[in-house]
């Protein structure tokens, strides 16, 4: 009976409201930032597992790491949870001193126990991002001896070899290095799951914002962390709404129901630029676009052919006209902004030169190859433009469209001719891309390391050694010089046609200020709304 009367009341209310028309639009509250995003790639909010674009953003803004880098100048690394650190003489141990008197959002103090727990937990759980820590010789079996508490506020981080300190520190700035509230996580532990089943949808950190809620395919809500030890964020709440369709997102931004539109394509960005009340901010992010030429294809394996292909892409036309500024021409394997990144762009479209090289390689009339292209507008447009310029030198490219997972499966099985796709760095150190593009320890089909060089069957024992040596170089300047040399070699000889680096373009209300675009995530702690 109660239910029925409530329903009657509801019906009466509708009739009442309907007679007066719809209520006025609410807009966004002044202390809340509402951003449109695509969160359909989210798997987990556990820093030991999260590795996607969207989750990285949320975790970086809600968890602190031992160390952090300056978003505006990546070369500046400073302490976060750690106050300072020293490297042992043999280079195999880094001792961290933890800042005292700081708290997690829960109110628990941050101590050496939390640091040891967080790092060992990530290694023991062995989810995808664990490899970042595994690189330093940390394994499930030895991690308890490698990351050890030496006092209430001091921790030793031991490694199997004397890796470059900059390499280690950059890796510790990634999400997998997040420091978790040990007490809180342990209170939710069940059957030795390290609290994973709880943490994957919850929060146990100390960053400027807390993660209040994640509704799959709907929204992520973050609240200001009242216990944050840094300067308190101006916004009380951040709401990231899942808006899968860019046109819809644009309409909502124009209408004022979104303060920020994070996922507009180049077309929408061009359309909203200059609109009243809207501004566009842009920054370079670490994503590279490249062609991978499979060396199992005997034609593509010829050095002259590899070089010719680099002259058959109209880089500037694609970046400026086709991609409308969402990409910048970049031809080295380290994205702009990384330690030692090379910004030279020696290659441009030169059909005559390419023909000459093809003739030298014994294929003066060109040849036919396939290109695996994932089915999205950007990749397809790029592939078609490349197809057209390659045809000018007689290289007939057949485009094979496929969905992302499908082309990737084929690529990882080394069954492609040409692969076109993006590559994003896993962490902020040059080693991430150097080990992908310039290392291939074992070119056999069943190799355990499946780097990009392996995927394209590029057998490079010498280069692999050089790249590995660079990861050990303790002198930062010398290390940067090593990477410059590696990039130049790869640029000249490799089966990789590195073409572009992504520009992130975010449209937002001109009321929004203080938003910081970073190379791998953006910071919201200084955001204000007029």
């Amino acid at each position, binding site marked *: 009976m109660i239910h029925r009367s*409530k*329903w009657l*009341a*509801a019906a009466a*209310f*509708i009739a009442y*409201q309907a007679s007066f028309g*719809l*209520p006025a*639009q*609410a807009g*966004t*509250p002044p202390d*809340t930032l*509402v951003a449109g995003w695509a969160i*359909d*790639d989210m*798997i*987990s909010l556990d820093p030991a597992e999260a*590795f996607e674009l969207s989750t990285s953003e949320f975790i970086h803004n809600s968890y602190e790491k031992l160390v952090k880098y300056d978003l505006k100048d990546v070369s500046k690394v400073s302490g976060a949870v750690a106050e300072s650190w020293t490297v042992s003489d043999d280079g195999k141990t880094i001792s961290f001193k933890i800042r005292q008197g700081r708290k997690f959002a829960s109110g628990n103090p941050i101590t050496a126990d939390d640091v040891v727990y967080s790092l060992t937990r990530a290694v023991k759980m*062995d*989810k*995808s*991002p*664990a*490899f970042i820590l*595994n690189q330093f010789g940390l394994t499930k079996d030895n991690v308890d001896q490698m990351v050890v508490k030496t006092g209430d506020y001091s921790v030793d981080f031991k490694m199997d070899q004397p890796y470059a300190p900059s390499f280690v520190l950059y890796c510790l700035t990634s999400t997998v290095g997040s420091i978790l509230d040990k007490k809180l996580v342990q209170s939710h532990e069940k059957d030795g799951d390290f609290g994973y089943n709880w943490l*994957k949808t919850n929060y146990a950190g100390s960053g400027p914002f807390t993660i209040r809620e994640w*509704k*799959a*395919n*709907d*929204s992520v*809500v973050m609240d200001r962390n009242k216990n944050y030890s840094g300067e308190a964020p101006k916004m009380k709440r951040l*709401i990231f*709404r*899942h*808006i*899968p*369709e860019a*046109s*819809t997102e644009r*309409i*909502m931004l*124009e*209408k004022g*129901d979104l303060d920020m539109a994070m996922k507009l394509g180049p077309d929408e960005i061009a359309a909203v630029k200059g609109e009243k009340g809207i501004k566009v901010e842009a920054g370079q992010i670490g994503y590279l676009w490249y062609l991978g030429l499979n060396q199992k294809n005997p034609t593509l394996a010829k050095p002259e052919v590899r070089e010719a292909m680099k002259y058959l892409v109209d880089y500037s036309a694609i970046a400026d006209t086709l991609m409308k500024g969402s990409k910048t021409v970049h031809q080295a394997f380290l994205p702009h902004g990384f330690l030692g990144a090379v910004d030279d762009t020696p290659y441009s479209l030169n059909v005559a030169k390419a023909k000459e090289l093809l003739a030298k390689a014994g294929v003066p009339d060109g040849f036919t190859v396939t290109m695996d292209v994932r089915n999205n507008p950007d990749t397809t447009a790029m592939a078609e433009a490349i197809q057209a310029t390659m045809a000018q030198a007689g290289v007939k490219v057949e485009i094979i469209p*496929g*969905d*992302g*997972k*499908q082309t*990737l*499966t*084929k690529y*990882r099985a080394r069954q492609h001719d040409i692969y076109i796709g993006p590559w994003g760095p*896993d962490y902020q150190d040059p080693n991430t891309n150097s080990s992908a593009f310039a290392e291939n320890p074992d070119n056999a089909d069943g190799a*355990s390391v499946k780097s990009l060089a392996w995927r394209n069957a590029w057998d490079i024992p010498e280069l692999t050694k050089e790249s590995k040596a660079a990861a050990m170089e303790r002198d930062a300047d010398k290390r940067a010089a090593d990477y410059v040399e590696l990039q130049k070699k790869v640029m000249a000889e490799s089966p990789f046609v590195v073409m572009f680096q992504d520009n992130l373009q975010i449209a937002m209300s001109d009321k929004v200020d203080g938003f910081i675009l970073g190379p791998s995530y953006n910071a919201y702690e200084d955001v204000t709304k007029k």
Partner: protein
Amino acid sequence: MTAATMTGGGRIRALRLFRKTGGLIVSVAVTLLGLLLVTFLIGRVVPVDPVLAMVGDRASQSTYDAAYHQLGLDKPLVEQFLIYVKNVLSGDLGESVLTKNPITTDIRTVFPATLELATFGVLIGTLVGIPLGIWAAVRKGRLADQAVRVIGLIGYSAPIFWLGLMGLLLFYAKLGWTPGPGRIDVTYQYDLPDDGTGFLLYDAAMAGEWEAFWNVAAHLVLPACLLGYYSMAYISRMTRSFMLNELAQEYIITARVKGAPEWRIIWVHALRNAAVPLVTVVALSYAGLLEGSVLTETVFAWPGLGMYLTNSLQNADMPAVLGCTLVIGTIFVAINLLSDLLYNVLDPRVRRRGK
């Protein structure tokens, strides 16, 4: 399917047979098993590595191998299928690769959004579509008929995606009559109980949050009208043709000769008979909307079954795709069954002879 094609005696005999043997259950079970088998096989022949979907591109070989084993991919195909069927029978649709939740939990979370939207959509479609169809049938060949035809054609042939964007642009952006995409405005998001049913109208009403209730209702208007328009197009066309069929029958002539008023001939004599096949049309429209109007949900950022399914497909989350397919298949079968039973009620011939 069967309901729409079978007629008269064949249908009655079939019904009788079903009742006698309990074959109905068997046929439903066989249909579902077939569905399961086909989707399972599709999931295996698609050239996508399900382990890759799970562990990501950068995982180590040992992580990859562990996941491979965990998914049971090292077992023979037949065994994998039998395990799956056994789990489904015990109500376990498996675990989503992407969300790591049991698929039943995921579907329970997303389905209310779709159900709420589809129900209003089909209501609008039926309440507008049937009168329009009747009107068109009565005014056959005249202006009204042509007008209904054109309206229906637009609804039927214009991409719903485009209609949705245009609708948003006009009614939300320009005129400001309706709220934007999504189910509820952010300001009301925390007025609703966390442990609600997921049917936001119901949750808001039960919590006595009338402002939130109204906000949810307002959010429903545009997408529901859009889906309503889409199903209206189909329903009105079918109503017209059923009505024309009935209006040409001899009993109508008899009624006219007897001097029955025209409204009675149309709304009582003819519609009563046309209503029987219409039930199937409406039921199928409803089932169609329930399966998740993928594009509408994308345009309106509506976190329903359609969006979940698309997302699962894009991420090669095969357990989730299989689970959704099974649920959608079950809904189709159930709604068909229901419309069969409604035939019994609506058609006295079936009722009498069926006894």
